[in-house]
């Protein structure tokens, strides 16, 4: 890697760390602007002005009467003290914090399981444990959209569990099936395997790796430092894709997670719930950013500590 490139390696991880710190505030701010633009307003959904005289009073009670900035700042000050307010419509009157505390673990488990599936696939592809031929099978399974796999699972669960579909037992099953759907469908696993395989195949053709092999070292240990940043970037993109897929899986399989809160909250214009869920979402995205920065820093440190490996670009 060229000399000046080495000095600038810390820029990208620094930006990521800065962003990770800012996200929990910046993302809710952007979302507030967006949901504020939605047609109609929450107060008139409950008390339509034509048939109910209390609309302004309700708007004032919910800080909706002085523009989005005022609303966001009052939300932020409450959130800072851990009070996310109450749900206006999804679970009218219940405090939002417990909703959030049940939602984050469910989504984390769902996305975590799906991600581990992806990582296993990627590792398999990188180390060629997963033969290239398997890619076509994975792609075939990947053809099935997440929503279809989730629907099949949801139908099976509801037919059998019926009313007890929300007990702890059933929720575990749904998260397992949801993670399966999330990981396999929408070509998530296929994409991961193919993406990582293409990076490693191109690295394998590089001379420095071939020299490493001549020296009897493993392909992985040689190619890994170079490929890590690209793989980290790709994995983060795939995880964000999983997070948006999680919305579909949670709504269809009726899992109480962040995605479901976001989706139903936005449709019902339940701003308190949307912002709280967005905050939770920002925490998850932030942790992904930290992980990516950590990988980049680790690679940079590794590169600095073992100079002989460096060589002039082809």
């Amino acid at each position, binding site marked *: 890697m060229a000399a000046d490139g080495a000095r600038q390696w810390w820029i990208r991880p620094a930006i990521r760390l800065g962003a990770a710190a800012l996200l929990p505030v910046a993302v809710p701010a952007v979302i507030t602007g967006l949901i504020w633009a939605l047609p109609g307003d929450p107060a008139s959904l409950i008390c*339509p002005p034509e048939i*109910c005289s209390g609309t302004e009073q309700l708007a004032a009670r919910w800080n909706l009467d002085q523009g989005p900035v005022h609303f966001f700042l009052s939300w932020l000050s409450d959130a800072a003290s851990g009070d996310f307010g109450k749900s206006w419509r999804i*679970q009218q*009157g219940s405090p939002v914090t417990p909703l959030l505390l049940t939602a984050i673990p469910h989504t984390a488990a769902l996305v975590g399981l799906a991600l581990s599936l992806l990582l296993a696939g990627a590792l398999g592809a990188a180390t060629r444990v997963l033969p290239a031929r398997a890619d076509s099978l994975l792609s075939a399974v990947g053809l099935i959209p997440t929503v279809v796999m989730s629907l099949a699972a949801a139908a099976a669960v*509801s037919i059998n569990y019926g009313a*007890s579909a*929300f007990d702890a037992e059933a929720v575990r099953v749904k998260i397992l099936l949801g993670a399966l759907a999330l990981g396999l469908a929408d070509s998530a696993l296929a994409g991961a395997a193919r993406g990582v395989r293409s990076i490693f195949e191109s690295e394998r053709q590089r001379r420095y790796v071939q020299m490493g092999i001549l020296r009897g070292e493993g392909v992985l240990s040689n190619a890994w430092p170079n490929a890590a940043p690209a793989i980290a970037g790709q994995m983060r993109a795939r995880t964000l894709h999983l997070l948006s897929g999680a919305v579909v899986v949670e709504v269809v399989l009726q899992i109480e997670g962040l995605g479901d*809160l976001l989706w139903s909250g936005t449709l019902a214009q339940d701003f308190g719930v949307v912002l709280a869920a967005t905050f939770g979402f920002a925490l998850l995205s932030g942790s992904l950013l930290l992980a990516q920065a950590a990988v980049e820093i680790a690679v940079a440190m590794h590169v600095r500590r073992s100079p002989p490996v460096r060589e002039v670009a082809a």
Partner: protein
Amino acid sequence: MSKTRNWKRLITGALVGLSALATCGSTLSFYEESLPTTLNPLYAASMVDHRVNELVFDRLYYHDPITNELASRLVTQWELVEQGKAVRLTLRKDIKWQDGKNFRADDVCFTVRAMLDPGTTSPIAEGYRSVFTGCEVEGKDQAIVRFTKIFHNPLNRLGFYVLPQHRFDGDAVPPDHDFSSHPTGTGPASGNLGSKQVNFQGIQNSHHQPSIAQLSLLEAQDPLVQVKTLLNNGVQGIIAVPPPYRAEVSTSDDMSLKGYDLRSWWFIAADQTKPFLKDKKVRQAINLLLDRTDLRQLSIGVKPGEQNSPCEFISGPFVQASPYYNHDVPVSARSDKDRALALLTEAGLTDVGGRWHYNGAPITLRIGMKAALDNEAPDLLSQIGNQLGQAGFDRQTYKLSEDEWNTQAITGQLSENYDLLIGKWSFGLVEDVNALFHTRRDGRGSKNIFNYSNPQVDALLAQYESAKTDTQARDAYHKLHSMLAEDLPYLFLWKLDTKSAWRTDVRGTTIAPYYYWTEIDNWKYGG
């Protein structure tokens, strides 16, 4: 194909293995049309909310579903006072709230004051502000409720749900109070609103002895999944079974169809403020272009001439069984293209290249329908579009969400976006349609979808309201029926019965009209 058969055997093997597991816990669970938006009776916005309130709360006065007497589980005696402008109620002393506190007269007066308090931002409370002036407590178990005027039947005005004073600080009841998800009532079951389901615990009380320990309300999904789950005993009941699935339920031994007396009729509201719809001849023509027999057969599955079908055509704003229905006004069961053509040309529309034009511009009918109705009458929107399309009208169809319908369609704000709106109204014993057709002015015509305004109609509605004898009221509504059938602010489609499905091992399933759960104490589910 052997491939499919052994695959199916595997899945059914897994499913059968599971079905034995699914019946653990003897909870009576059922699919409702949707999750309730709130458990607070003052903010009930849909039929689902009203039904759920009947489980958690007690109405001060209600009609017994068996003997139809006006009865009360809370009041022992009543008497008219202050020359008939107030009523003194003596309440039972042995009733407890679900959280154990005593039910007292203060609670009744608190509920009246809460409805009168401007801090309670609810359309329902607003409706009662023209009925009550206040309430005064006399001792622990007597309350005097004061009316705005002398009512011929005061007890019929006391059908509201009683709320507990001790759960609120002050008279105002805001919507986002914790009470809305975790209410306290005196009803047969205490409710907890979850994000995916509502759980009820049966509460023994001096005036309620429910024999079902737990109930669980689930949100309706795809009708096929609902029926399969019911077949598999995943749930024990479905509140509203869409017509195409009723045959499957009635032929099964394990479950039976139950009638739910709700007078619902379907309509297409026409926006007569639009230039090409202003002339009633155009509306009459469109009415004649619709072939209701085909629409009914294709979307609800009722063959022509079927005996005693749940779906019967109407020509006015009442079901045919109603005393207000004017049987002299014929129903147009079949389309009549020739007359429609004549009417359209008379109204000044021109047929250019097979497409209708008005003042030289092609007409595009923008037709909207409430998305939720697609379950009950699958594809009705596209078939109405097809029929009008074949008759020469370009059209675009739209589905509206529940919020859009309740906050904009009903309040008359969708005139620029739509020309025709398909919807449905449900009535209980009272079939007062003034709010639908009266000119929207100072509180009247509050549900006038396209702000229809016709002085003659307003006069008839006034005659109904001020009628001194029943015959005058009935005569007014008979005339209203024939006038609306001619002026057509609504193209009237049909009435459609609502049917529930319950498994046969649920016993004593008496379903009360409109409120549904009034008789839940006598329901039994061994399980």
